[in-house]
């Protein structure tokens, strides 16, 4: 990561603010994600994480400040151009008609196709490979309505892969996944960053996944960035206590050398046995 400073940011927000009516949701956020980086967005419920992701993905207009993807302001780029660069895994995907899982993944090719065009053999191959990488090949022929929440989440992630993005925005992509699929998903994310130099910004609630997989973390509270920097420097007891207003035990994972974060139950806090680190 020594070259980080030299490379231009793939995602860049500067003094970015967004409000629903008079209610400010995101306030003066400045952040950057460079190609090859996996950056975590962590914060309590209602801290503005999803809204920030939606603004950066170009679906919410009327923000103040600057939100750029590969140097272009997201509200000024044509949707199709943006979608060729940027893929999004939303927190709550919507599925209208009963498409099959494979058809949903093929929709990732939409921005790359012209007019009424039909998907080519290569498009199909990309979709199959994406399904494979998400361990979802056996779901391909199933109707999306028949799948469980976790299975759908893997299909939506596969769709984002099929889009061949250079920038990836993930909004809690693993919230419904079992531990095996959580790890597999973030392994793919790391691989995308390392091999294809994809820039990844991901919202996550699981602080241990964040500690394990993110190069850097931004802590968000009330729409503002409270702390930002290398994961080990941000996920401290003091920061987490301040942002989440709850006590945690922070230690080192002896096996991976990364941080280990355990929220403490109320009775431990009351007994005063004291938080660690």
């Amino acid at each position: 990561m020594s070259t980080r400073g030299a490379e231009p940011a793939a995602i860049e927000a500067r003094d970015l603010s967004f409000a629903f009516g008079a209610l400010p949701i995101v306030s003066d956020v400045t952040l950057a994600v460079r190609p090859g980086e996996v950056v975590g967005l962590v914060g309590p419920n209602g801290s503005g994480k999803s809204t920030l992701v939606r603004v950066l993905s170009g679906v919410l207009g009327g923000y103040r400040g600057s939100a750029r993807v590969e140097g272009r302001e997201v509200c000024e780029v044509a949707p199709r151009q943006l979608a060729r660069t940027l893929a999004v895994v939303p927190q709550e995907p919507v599925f209208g008609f009963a498409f099959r899982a494979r058809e949903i993944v093929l929709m990732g090719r939409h921005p790359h196709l012209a007019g009424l065009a039909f998907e080519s053999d290569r498009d199909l191959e990309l979709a199959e490979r994406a399904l494979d990488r998400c361990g979802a090949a056996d779901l391909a022929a199933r109707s999306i309505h028949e799948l469980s929440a976790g299975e759908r989440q893997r299909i939506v992630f596969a769709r984002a892969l099929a889009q061949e993005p250079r920038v990836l925005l993930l909004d809690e992509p693993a919230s419904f996944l079992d531990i095996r699929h959580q790890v597999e998903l973030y392994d793919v994310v790391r691989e995308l960053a390392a091999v294809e130099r994809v820039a990844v910004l991901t919202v996550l609630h699981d602080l241990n996944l964040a500690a394990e997989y993110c190069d850097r973390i931004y802590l968000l509270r009330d729409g503002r960035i409270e702390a930002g920097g290398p994961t080990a420097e941000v996920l401290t007891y003091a920061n987490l206590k301040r942002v989440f207003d709850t006590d945690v035990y922070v230690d080192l994972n002896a096996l991976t050398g990364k941080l280990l974060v355990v929220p403490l139950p109320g009775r431990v806090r009351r007994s005063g046995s004291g938080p660690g680190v």
Partner: protein
Amino acid sequence: MSGRSPRLTRGRVALAILVTSLLLALALALGASLGAGRASLWTLLPGGGPASDVDRSILLDVRIPRVLLAAILGGALTLAGAVFQALLRNPLADPYVLGVSGGASIGGIVALLLGGASGTLLGRLGVPAAAFAGALVSLALIERVATVGGRLSVYTLLLTGAIFNAFSAALIYFLQSVASLEELHGIVFYLMGRIPSFALSELAWLGGAVAATAVALTAMARDYNALSLGEEGARQLGVDVERVKRRTFVLGSLLTALAVSVAGLIGFVGLVVPHVLRRLLGPDHRLLLPTAFLGGAGFLVLADLAARILVAPNELPVGVVTALVGGPFFLYLLRGTTREHAGR
């Protein structure tokens, strides 16, 4: 459709279009051949048997234009229903749900009451023209109301449409209550939906307008697939959602307006046909929209044939036939699909 190719191909769409076209041709031939008198397509062919001038005239001046008009209107209504279903992500939407039909009905009824019922050319075309004008006014009004902060809101659109329809219905009841008995009869028959007589030259204009609109709508087929993932989901896949929504509302409403202006309110075609085809062929709009257009055309030709021959020598309003057939059939289908759409 088990064992189908894992992706939709041009060939599959072409095959489906070919099959539905053949079915439509069959329906057209049946529609033109059956009915009062012995006129049939057969007698038009050289050496096809003796054809009296009366038979020939029935066929060329009455039956063929009527069958073609039924096809045009059936296609228009079904396509409008299919694209509104895509726009609203709801398989229960029909061409009338967004409200233009209300404006069209009022325009038509006002023209009827102002004396357009007479058999003159002005009277015959005056009612559709007034209805179409009413539809355009309501279209503009609805679009204005449903545009919030420069964006067309689908929820507001749906609510506005519902309110517009309710308001129009009240206005129609009002007009009916002040109309004379004879006028009332005219209004009721106008609203029930029937296929009128048009000259072939007039049909060419109508058919051209419907075909152009249909092509413009079908060109957005892939966008409708993406729209199934919600407006934000579609936008994140590169769809210019605002443009697609506005075009769909305007073009779908124009198709509906044309159909209602010409033939009154023919129900269920635009609801049932896309629904059946979605079950048979899957939800991909590249396959659904063209086959819905052709299938809807064939369906209305057959419904109109039934309307003509079931109680001959009298005639049923075709809207009654489509509702009597479509209603129960739709309920039957719905029982099988409730589970499928539960996840919506």
